[in-house]
């Protein structure tokens, strides 16, 4: 399967990806442009460019047509790609996708806040995002600096994707998504309100499963890696 990461970037060796592997999956986890060690997203000027980049990425990785689990900003891109290229993915598991906007219950602003508060918004348990936010004690000084730059660029890439309001008209295109979709939403998601789970369920044409996961935040796979891996395994097998 393919994992398209969210705002926390590609975690590399991580409990969630390990859990998927332990369930028998071979997981391809590419970094979207600008995130976690990839090059800066120069030349990408709008969401269309990002979707084209993702399309090229899965082709180059040889995972076109594979099942996908996508999270947060990655889920938004996966959905956009599925609207114009249905064969890009097989079944989809989407964790708290961006893309809808309800003025009565708006998505929280994850950028008008301090770094420590943003950390608290991304996972229910702040320690769950240690791989992204924390420096390793044994890191030499020069790598510490670059780790900080990398973290900044990853946060910048998220901002480029969803600033200032993460709504780009996808609701007008979602009827084109024929893939079976399983929706996952952390019950403690501090960015995307709980009501959006129902909105996605109503608007997507082929929802086959809906999971509200307790004790999980926006990036539920970081808070509950084994449980989300189990949901994905069940949905995509």
């Amino acid at each position, binding site marked *: 399967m393919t994992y398209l990461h969210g705002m926390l970037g590609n975690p590399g060796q991580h409990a969630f990806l390990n859990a998927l592997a332990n369930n028998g999956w071979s997981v391809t986890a590419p970094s979207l442009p600008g995130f976690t060690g990839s090059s*800066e*997203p120069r030349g990408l*000027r709008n969401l269309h460019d990002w979707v084209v980049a993702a399309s090229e990425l899965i082709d180059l990785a040889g995972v076109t047509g594979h099942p996908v689990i996508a999270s947060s900003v990655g889920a938004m891109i996966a959905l956009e790609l599925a609207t114009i290229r249905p064969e890009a993915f097989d079944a989809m598991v989407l964790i708290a996708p961006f893309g809808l906007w309800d003025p009565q219950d708006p998505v929280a602003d994850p*950028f*008008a*806040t*301090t770094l420590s*508060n943003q950390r608290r918004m991304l996972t229910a348990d702040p320690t769950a995002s240690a791989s992204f936010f924390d420096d390793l004690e044994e890191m030499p000084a020069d790598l510490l*600096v*670059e780790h*900080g*730059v990398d973290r*900044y*660029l990853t*946060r*910048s*890439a*998220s*901002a*480029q994707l969803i*600033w*200032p309001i993460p709504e780009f008209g996808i609701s007008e295109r979602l009827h084109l998504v024929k893939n079976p979709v399983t929706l996952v939403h952390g019950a403690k998601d501090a960015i995307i309100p709980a009501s959006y789970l129902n909105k996605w369920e109503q608007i997507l044409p082929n929802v086959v499963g809906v999971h509200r996961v307790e004790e999980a935040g926006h990036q539920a796979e970081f808070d509950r890696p084994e449980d989300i891996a189990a949901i994905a395994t069940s949905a995509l097998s």
Partner: protein
Amino acid sequence: MWVDIDPALYDPEVGNRIYNEYLDELEFAADCGFDAVGVNEHHSNGYGLMPSPNIIAAALSRNCPDTNIVVLGDSVALYNPPLRVAEEIAMLDAITGGRMVAGFPVGSPMDTIFAYGQNPATIRERYHEGVDLIRQAWTRDEVFSFNGKYNKLRYVNVWPRPVQQPHPPIWIPGGGSVDTWDWCAQEDLVYCYLSYFGYKAGLKTMQGFWKKVQETGKEANPFQGGFAQFIAVADTEKEAWDLYREPAEYFFNTCLHVYAGFADPPGYKTPNTVRAGVEGMVERAAREATARAEAKKSSAGGGYPKGLSFEEMVEKGYVILGNPTQVAEQVHELATTMHIGHLMTFCHFGNMNKDLVRYNTEMYATKVMPEVCDLFEDEYEDLWWPQPLAQPALRDVPEVSAS
């Protein structure tokens, strides 16, 4: 105080009074003999009320015929298309007969990213493209097409054109980005460090800029540098301490409250600035505001936290204070240590009333400025100063006949 200030706090009648006082103060400064008066741009801001500097510049343009006007400046990325800036500065240059300086800031994160919804990851690219468009619009002698990433214009043809040729001097207000140093050095633009925190804290930033100038092999002409400084001058030092204490403490401890979450949106800084570990002016303001808020929390029930004292502000150089001789000495120190040829003085800060603003302004203009105004002029040519027409048209409205 910025971005999410409660709209209910705005009083339209006070607004009417305040804008007229601002204009009175600027016109008075011009009458006092300042080389220029300056206006800037902020949005959703409780202490500045200056969303459109060009409107204020227009209001000044005919009432201040003997001074220059520094728009410092138009936040280029916020104008769609930025040609609007090219047109308006050209209009002002035409009205004033060539007395304009065009300042182009990226703009603070509060103004650009939060109040105006610009994308932090792309604003600098958008800004540079906008400045490029404006410069081309002022200098090319043909109708041309501009196919930018953010601006696509089939026909670029700015009317009017600036009086000053090829264009008014361009000053770049910066807040500490190392890439802005590079750019100003390469492009021969004036780098202005508009700091809230005075010349002692600003020295490192200006040294960074001059190092870049030297690396390009160019002369470190002090007139390519600018700096903004709070000034508090009175007949005696004691009088200065008495007069300016409350306004300074009010500004730094109340007005300059920037929520830390608005200070550093991801993408606003360049990777080089992140890598260099340079703290921007807004970040510093937010850090100090957060420290004050935390001190307030920890002192709950134990007395009101004072924030930074006026003595500390003066000691740290946030405010240059004293009698005219003392202020002149400090301004001289500022100019020579930072190698600054253009000094922007904040003669109005905090809750100063208009009488005190006038006093501070007149004292500086008449008793301090003569002591420092010719610094560097023997050694360097100011290549970044307005060049007005020799015989500009002026206001010429006949009296209305009684009949």
